[in-house]
């Protein structure tokens, strides 16, 4: 069963609940290149893995850090946050512990009221067009005018 291993927040420490994306976990051992050890999906702002645990650390090597990389992919039409890598100079969390959070920076500047109102209207139009494809006006109703 998949369980949360870390969550994704914005710079204000708010969990980005609608966020979909992918994640990668990389481990760095002394005298070795950083290497990817796991990857998976982020669903509604939470990265999860089977058993809710990070991959085991190779105890025969000297561990330096782990890195979490988050790449947002949605939801559809949504592109508010830039990808982000968080490097933690410590051993990865043990099974059952949560790996904290990755804070994603917001892209661009704070939107203006005009931009928001335009976005609101544009979204209404796209919702209407999507729904109208599924629920078209019948020819008889169109004839009635």
């Amino acid at each position, binding site marked *: 069963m998949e369980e949360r291993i870390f969550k994704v927040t914005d710079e204000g420490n708010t969990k980005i609940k609608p966020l979909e994306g992918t994640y990668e976990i990389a481990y760095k051992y002394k005298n070795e290149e950083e290497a990817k050890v796991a990857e998976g999906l982020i669903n509604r702002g939470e990265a999860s893995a089977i058993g809710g645990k990070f991959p085991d650390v190779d105890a025969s090597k000297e561990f330096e850090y782990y890195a979490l990389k988050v790449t947002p992919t949605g939801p559809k039409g949504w*592109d508010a946050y830039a990808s982000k890598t968080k490097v933690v100079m410590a051993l990865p969390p043990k099974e059952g512990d949560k790996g904290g959070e990755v804070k994603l920076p917001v892209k661009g500047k704070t939107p203006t009221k005009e931009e928001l109102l335009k976005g609101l209207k544009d*979204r209404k139009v796209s919702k209407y067009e999507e*729904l109208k494809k599924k*629920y078209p006006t019948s020819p008889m109703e169109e004839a009635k005018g």
Partner: protein
Amino acid sequence: MNIDKKFRREAPTETRQSLGVYFDREDKHLAYLDQNRKEHVIAEKEGTVNLELGTDAGSSLVKTDTTYNFGGVEYDTYRLRSWAFFNTPNTVQIAELGYIYISNGDMFIIKNSSNIEAVDFNGNLGYTNTPLTPEALVDDATDVARKISTIYLNQDNAVGAFPQNYNFMYIVGFDAAAFECDVYIDVEFIVEKGETVEFVVS
């Protein structure tokens, strides 16, 4: 005789523990006194609600006096009211209400007392009033009320490149056949205590 004040005098005392509810005319609220004669306000008297007119609806947002404490986390409560009238029959009806900005965290709607009114002159006569649910009654040119496929209050905070702090609010309804109705939105939502909330009517 001042009935309200009479009730107040008979409110519970240390030896009489029954609940005595009274209406305070001066402060315009409904309240009771506990055994220590401390006043507890049950409900404020409703004042005038000014619905600011927008493109598709008139809306109002006010902060209420209610706060919640859930596991040590405190929340403020806000009340959103909007009236929208879908008077032109269509299979898809969408009204934009505006956007609600939360300085940090999400908003969660915890109460929905919204109503749909429809005409039923040629059905069971009069008007129908049903809650805002996917099976609410709406009408059409026949003036007979019928169930709709779906209608709901839409809180959308995943819009374009805007951060999730901006909640775009719509009323969305759709059905296989064209419909019309009046919608009266009345909901309460919580945000974490102390966060700034801003409502901009569209």
